[in-house]
């Protein structure tokens, strides 16, 4: 059991270490309450996020995937999020072509100081996924 049945759906988040992971920490320190569905994977930079990680997650069990990096122009590594933006936009447009609702994948920018924005992003995205419901209705007997 990975999520609490009936209460949670499976949401994977890829957060860049410098901005969004820090933003999530800031939200935590400020005790900004959030839904519990999200599971966070720390990456150094949103530019590290191969779109195929998102595909892998969506194909193997995730109901939603969230990628969050530094605001454009404020990347700790100068250009990482600029690459991320292109790649993730490409993926967002490809997903519906293979029958996956693009709303299940969201990418955004949250800085380390934006604890409140992080709370909002997590809450809104989780609500959205709950509205869409589970992606994997009939579970394949795999894995």
């Amino acid at each position, binding site marked *: *059991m990975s999520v609490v049945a009936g209460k949670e759906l499976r949401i994977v988040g890829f957060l860049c270490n410098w901005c969004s992971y820090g933003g*999530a920490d800031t939200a*935590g320190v400020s005790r*900004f309450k959030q839904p519990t569905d999200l599971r966070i994977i720390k990456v150094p930079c949103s530019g590290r996020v191969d*779109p195929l*990680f998102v595909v892998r997650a969506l194909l193997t069990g995730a109901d939603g995937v969230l990628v969050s990096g530094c605001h454009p122009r*404020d990347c*700790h590594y100068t250009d990482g999020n600029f690459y991320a933006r292109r790649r993730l936009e490409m993926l967002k447009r490809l997903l519906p072509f293979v029958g996956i609702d693009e709303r299940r994948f969201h990418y955004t920018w949250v800085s*380390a100081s934006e604890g409140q924005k992080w709370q909002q992003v997590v809450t809104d995205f989780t609500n959205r996924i709950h509205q869409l419901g589970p992606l994997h209705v009939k579970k394949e007997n795999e894995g």
Partner: protein
Amino acid sequence: MRVGVFICHCGNNIAGTVDVARVAAEMRKLPGVVYATNYMYTCSEPGQEEIKQAIRKEGLDRIVVAACSPRMHENTFRKTIEKAGLNRYFLEMANIREHISWIGEDKELNTNKAIEAVKMAVAKVMNNKPLYSSSFKVNKRVLVIGGGVAGMQAALDCADGGLDVVLVEKSPSIGGMMSRLDKTFPTIDCSICILGPKMVDVVQHEKIKLYAYSEIDEIKGYVGNYQIKIRKKATYVDWSKCTGCGACMEKCPTRNAYDHFNFGVATTRAINIPFPQAIPKKAKIDPEFCRQFTKGKCGVCAKICPTGAINYEMKDEIVAEDVGAIIVATGYGLFDLDKFPEYGAGRYPDVITGIQYERILNASGPTSGHILRPSDQTEPKTVVFVSCAGSRDKSLGVPYCSNFCCMYIAKQAILTKDHIPDSQSYVFYMDIRSNGKGYDEFTRRAQEEYGAKYIRGRVAKIYPKGKKMVVRGADTLLGTQVEVEADLVVLATAVISAPGAAGMAEKLHISYDTFGFYVESHPKLRPVETNTSGVYLAGACQGPKDIPASVGQGSAAASKVLSLFSKDMLESDPAIAQVNINACVGCLKCVKTCPFQAIKEEVLRNGRKVAKVIETVCAGCGVCTSTCPCGAIQLQHFTDNQLLAEVNAICQS
């Protein structure tokens, strides 16, 4: 593989909303996990000792600590396991505090989420490889950006510590905001009298190289090895010849140039030296106002200059400097009057800002220290101060307190009484914030000894009535509306981030908050560090700050640089990209995308082309790894397999 898992209670911070014992119990069921326990404070001395004991007793070779954010204690635990003989990169942390216990209310859901988070960490740690730092040489020069009091203090402390300092100031003189102030609270000593000698120390220090009227164009490199490009803006005056005699300024026919130093309280000449104590005391031309530039003819200053320093053809010049660390002290900005339509939006000449009033009070200011109101140059008898003009006002985008206005208003009220004994000051305030040494006594003196009338309430409107300005506000203590007919109104306008702060942060790769203030590494424990190693903060660029705090931070930043430079070699972060030359097909797409030009082409002995990472240049972003189609270049510690292990741990369970 023998993984050990340590779940921290963090007192009640985690254990309050996460069933830590159950998390530990669940972990024991995982393949590979041979030891799992929970402990009150894992980061404490005995907590760390327990990890070391377990490593020895149980023969653990991979460690997972589930506790607070790795941004907090990852280094602590890395050192712990290293002491027990493990490679420090055999550690993973699961953030079950900031990301779980502090943000979720349901204990069952939190516990489940914590189990998942630790599972992910276990999955990842089993894919961790030992990594080893290498060391590199440090360039022991430091760049200080901003020549206000914080930057000057930092520069002097570094220079006194034996470091070569490059100080860059964007205005024509160092001194910053403090050089504009008349007196300072709570001692009423003269601002320029205490700052002036410091300014002289800076310019005379053999270890400090000053670039005034210059800006940072580009910053490249990393801690220990930065390459800086500095733009020396064209002054149209050859400073090597200029003696600062001021003859040009006297003869310049353009008398209506905007006076930046005096915040527009007066006008200046198109060629000017900002103020008598300026350092360097050199003239510069404002081409916006100079007739030679606007009309194409004049040349008066060129004729008058005894040393022939005037050069209308001068262009910006770019100079390069290499440094090993950077102290950012770029200061703050102030709200403009046009933000306040209810106070006339700058249309009423006798409604001015606090900093403008400082210039009017100042003996070397445009009124030679006589308080004269701008509209008719008469002495005001009633002066109203409005605190929080913009500050603590969400609707204006400044929800924060500007920190030092309460104090300077009290100071200005005292000085007003000193200058004009039969004057009366009124202060509209929300709260009096005077929480420094001797501060509260000072605001009380303003009221009790100098008779300033403090009215608790906000000002709704300021409007002219004859020669007077009527200030209408609420007196919330009396529960009435009050109107004061004033001769002069001073607004304590909100402190905002310096103009261009965001752009500077982007050049430095440091974070800034919604308001443009730079974000420190930890609000309590790392107040002058940034998340970019080698870059430190001083003064109000990090948030509104008064003089003592700015000076303190300047010294703190300097001490950080001095301790960084106490070693000749620095250890590199081994979490960088690595090429598997057997898998690399030499397409070199990684070379194209690397933001740091850290990858180059290498030809093997058999003639095959492959990618090669320049270890000292790689910053570890991983763009190459997500670019490489065949997975041949892998960012260590964040390899595809490590991240896939985490994805699988979530999705396939």
